[in-house]
């Protein structure tokens, strides 16, 4: 089943001065449970694309539909609520709130949604055990390594069972060992939970782990294949 449909999606920065066509007439669909890497050189438009899919940035043209909800028609407030309830995010860095412990960070969105404490606790413990951080539940991000922080970010993105998770270069700041660990975890959770992952990278070792690869060049899809 398709959960994301992108039609004629374009983004032009500085349209009035020196226009930059960061994303150009892109058409894509993503199915439930997919594990997709968007690959491309720096500046090819990966972040711009992911931000539009996630409702963080507005397209100049075209539309993004998520489970038949057209993001393009939503107000800022509606979009923010939609992101909270249906999308998980992992950024390159600064994902976590430094004043909350690992488990509090994982529970954060569920708490904002007003989910019961019991449900939050069992869900976050389950995830923290899945990312092998059961022993660091009460550590604040400052006391965790970069790799551990990214794992907590993945757990947070998944905690409220969103329709999909967007991860923009989640391994860019990690060494190869942590990169491999993070991917192991992403693959495992994708399989266990059936939640769609879309992540961008320009690291070949990361691309190798994806089941679908979209190659991006100058804001357009150059290749799109399943392995």
């Amino acid at each position: 089943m398709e959960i994301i449909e992108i039609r004629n999606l374009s983004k032009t920065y500085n349209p009035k001065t020196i226009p930059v066509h960061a994303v150009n007439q892109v058409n894509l669909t993503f199915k439930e449970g997919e594990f997709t890497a968007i690959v491309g050189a720096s500046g090819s438009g990966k972040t711009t694309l992911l931000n539009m899919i996630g409702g963080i940035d507005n397209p100049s043209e075209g539309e993004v539909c998520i489970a038949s909800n057209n993001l393009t028609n939503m107000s800022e407030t509606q979009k923010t609520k939609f992101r909270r309830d249906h999308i998980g995010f992992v950024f390159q860095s600064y994902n976590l709130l430094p004043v909350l412990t690992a488990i509090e960070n994982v529970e954060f969105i569920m708490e904002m949604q007003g989910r019961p404490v019991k449900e939050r606790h069992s869900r976050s413990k389950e995830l923290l055990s899945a990312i092998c951080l059961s022993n660091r539940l009460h550590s604040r991000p400052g006391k965790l390594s970069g790799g551990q922080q990214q794992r907590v970010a993945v757990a947070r993105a998944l905690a409220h069972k969103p329709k999909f998770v967007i991860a923009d270069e989640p391994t860019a700041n990690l060494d190869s060992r942590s990169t491999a660990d993070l991917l192991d975890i992403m693959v495992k959770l994708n399989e266990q939970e059936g939640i769609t992952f879309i992540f961008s990278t320009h690291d070949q070792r990361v691309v190798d782990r994806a089941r679908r690869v979209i190659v991006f060049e100058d804001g357009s899809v150059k290749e799109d294949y399943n392995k």
Partner: protein
Amino acid sequence: MNQLIKLAWRNIWRKKRRSVITMLSVIFAVVISVNFRSLQWGAYDKMIEAGTKNSGYLQVQSQDYWEDKSINELIEDHVNFRNQISSVPGISSVIPRLQNFSLAASESSSKGALVIGIDPESENQYNELNSRVIKGSYLSENENAVIIAEGLSNYLKLKVNDTLVLVSQGYHASIAAGKYPIKGIVKLPNPQMNRMTAYLPLTTAQAFNGAEGLVNAFMLNVSDRTQVNATQLMLQDQLGPAYAIMRWDEMHPEIQKSINTDTTIATLLLSALYLIVGFGIIGTIVMMALERKREFGMLQAIGLQKSQIQTVILLESLMLGVIGVILAWLIAFPIVNFMHNNPIPLTGEGAKSFEAMGVEPVIQFAIKPHLFALMGLIIFLIMLVASAFPLTMIRKLKMSEVIK
């Protein structure tokens, strides 16, 4: 909401040093300003006390008395009328007076004097005139005797048991004249009063002025000074338009004026203090906001509404302010309380300037809850103003630009 409060609380301890400095500056400003104003209010209270000792907080007069202070504008002193006055809530005592200007003379010299007819007992209950007697003794009711102020006695070279001659124009142009043995000498704190005052028992003064059963004013004491305006209105209502009800500040415009001048200067000084502290706080909060731009973007991306992020920031500022203000109160109150209970007597030049105003020369803080509240409110406002920058920043924030 709980979640946002928790977040705000944790955030203020994130940069401990910075928060502590912000709180210390709040504490500094509030403690200084509360103490400074309590000191000044202590002096104001002393001035008001000195003034009202000789006028009451309110006076009932004939409608036309105040303008000319004419001996012809008198009112009748009836028990019923006194009862009518004291039935008004907030009035704690009613003290009759009949005063008139007169020529006071001894064998060798003469001088203008203010001759005040008093009810010795109620007068003393209200302002302890008895305790001001330095030679001889205090008056008793109906007797044919006078007590005179120290300055007047010196000028006229009169001692206790000498005779004072008073001559004046009495009620309805009658000739007022009398000879009174001096029963006592009083030292009045107000130097001007000390040079010119003589006290007769009320009935003696009425006889002297040819104004039997008449007084020029009832001085009133009130149970709550802060309610004096309301009491004035109620009394006016009760007595009707034939009577003028004067408030202490109407009778002593000079006191109100000097309090106002002093307050203006204090306001300027404290504004400068709060301005400095305020800019420090604003700077800190602006810095905090700029440092956390990316965090705000991240929060919005993962699903916090801008209004929720703004709530967190506002809570952080208010918490800092509230903690600072509460600590400041806890520090300031014992100091003010101590300085209230342990007045410091002044000596030398300082004492003289107090005495010149007829005010007891001591430094005694006043305990005024409104000062504590006011300084807290100022901090609250500073915190709101300081939050304006981060709140605006969050409103204008473009997530896609900050979370790169």
